[in-house]
């Protein structure tokens, strides 16, 4: 379904803080009343990085959480754009466009597993908050990262009551030593009715592979938030194409921004996605 853009708006907010979480993770908090009131779990905002024409394009970020009239974004300073965001000071303006994209289908019952890889933690606090407001309490977060300092802190996935968070690191510095998909294998024994995943596309492919190899029935709700190099964020540049299985399971290009970023994992052409060259993300 093509995303509804009618709630998207340009909004210049005020930076409240850019917090260093450790391991390079940053949490940007800004007063953005429109975005805070309209963001749904899994939707994103396009943030302008600086005021110059270089970098030119906005950068897409999941709305990590909202509280009253403020929004949080989790990111890492890896390129020209994110370095500018990292340098923002309290009181600085923040030029945003959002909310954009299709979010998660928020279930209202059952057993939920959220699988996060690295910065894939970003959409989950808002999702978990929405799940709880619908009465879902059985929520397990599987949080994976390269190393302990790069794990999004467990207590930030939801406040005040922290959900159950199982952690995995590639180097074994905290939690399970190995990929987060090994935690998912264990979690499947409890037969979750909804699985939500976010992380690098390769990690999402591994999640789907783990589910298929398990032989268990796929849960009714099985969604991933994907990423792609993005131009506009609202469906006009056609830049953020992703391979998706269309009618008759033939692969077609769908747009990450307005057909996603959240897509049913059953519909993604994971082999096609894996075959794509790496993105040149700044």
């Amino acid at each position, binding site marked *: 379904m093509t995303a509804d853009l009618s709630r998207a708006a340009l909004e210049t907010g005020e930076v409240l803080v850019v917090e260093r979480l450790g391991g390079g993770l940053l949490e940007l908090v800004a007063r953005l009343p429109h975005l805070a009131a309209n963001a749904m779990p899994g939707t994103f905002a396009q943030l302008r990085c600086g005021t110059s024409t270089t970098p030119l394009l906005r950068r897409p970020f999941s709305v990590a959480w909202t509280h009253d009239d403020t929004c949080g974004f989790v990111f890492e300073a890896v390129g020209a754009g994110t370095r500018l965001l990292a340098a923002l000071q309290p009181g600085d303006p923040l030029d945003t466009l959002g909310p954009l994209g299709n979010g998660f289908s928020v279930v209202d019952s059952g057993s939920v597993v959220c699988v996060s890889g690295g910065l894939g933690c970003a959409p989950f606090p808002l999702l978990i908050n929405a799940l709880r407001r619908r009465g879902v309490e059985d929520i397990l977060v599987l949080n994976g990262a390269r190393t302990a300092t790069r794990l999004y802190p467990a207590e930030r996935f939801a406040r005040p009551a922290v959900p159950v968070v199982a952690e995995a690191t590639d180097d074994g510095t905290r939690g399970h030593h190995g990929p987060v998909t090994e935690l998912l294998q264990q979690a499947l024994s409890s037969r979750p009715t909804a699985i939500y995943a976010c992380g690098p596309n390769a990690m999402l492919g591994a999640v789907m592979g783990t589910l298929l190899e398990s032989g268990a029935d796929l849960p009714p709700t099985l969604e991933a938030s994907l990423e792609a190099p993005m131009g506009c964020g*609202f469906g006009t540049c056609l830049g953020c194409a992703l391979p998706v299985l269309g009618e008759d399971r033939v692969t077609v290009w769908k747009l990450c921004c307005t057909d996603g970023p959240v897509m049913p994992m059953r519909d993604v052409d994971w082999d096609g996605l894996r075959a794509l060259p790496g993105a040149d993300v700044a």
Partner: protein
Amino acid sequence: MTENAPGSVDLGRGLTLPNPVGLASGTAGYGFELEQLIDINRLGALYTKGTTMDARAGNPPPRVAETGGGMLNSIGLQNPGVDSVATTYAPRWTGWSIPIIVNIAGGSVDEYVHCVSVLEPVSEVAGIELNISCPNIAQGLDFGRDPAEAARLVAAVRAVTQRCVIVKLSPNVTDIAAVARAVEDAGADAVSAVNTYIGRKIHRATGRSVLPLGTGGLSGPAIQPLALAAVAAVCAAVHIPVIGVGGIIDAASARDFLIVGACAVQVGTATFVNPETALQVLDGLRVDDY
């Protein structure tokens, strides 16, 4: 609208734009997204995504790459095909006051003629812009590079439409003025200049081109001085209206095109950054600017 708000622009053959500021082809789709974000009907024209005879899936990603002051794209003319535009999209334009100018692309004269013929009875279409210069498909560019080929194409299209035909010129030529003169002589009502410049970006970590086809089309403020030079050359060469496009980000950069002789402008890549840019350009221009 203020007293000095820019007025209408007569492009010929019955096509009068309510004001000179339009949305450039390939940056506004068919208007349905931007219509949700901005007051699109205040603008002078919507030049649609390049439309071909058959639906095109487009190129594999990555399709966009940011560069200094600009971006490269290699979309590959993803579009639903002219029949879908005529039967499914056009009815959705009913009631819009913004003139819809459908941008047509193709690999042969016959394909262009077919597309224009399909659109001829569609009342929601205000005009035709011929894309003779898409850099991201195997065929199509040659029309823009060779004045005689461009003229042959325009003459064939001229024969099947009563509508205003605007020809969008490629900057990737030695003498853009020669192509402009050729299409004017062949019956074009107006020209728009310029399409994107061929560019390439290397992935620093791998040493490979970022875009799968190697090159793409460069747009954004980086090209504005290049586009301005090309438009000035075109304005000096032809008597038909010239629409300036390339790197406009605000009223000042749009006014430059009017100063060198363009009668209208198109805002392109800047819309991606701020969907209200074209409206801001319109509000920033005054009637004595051109």
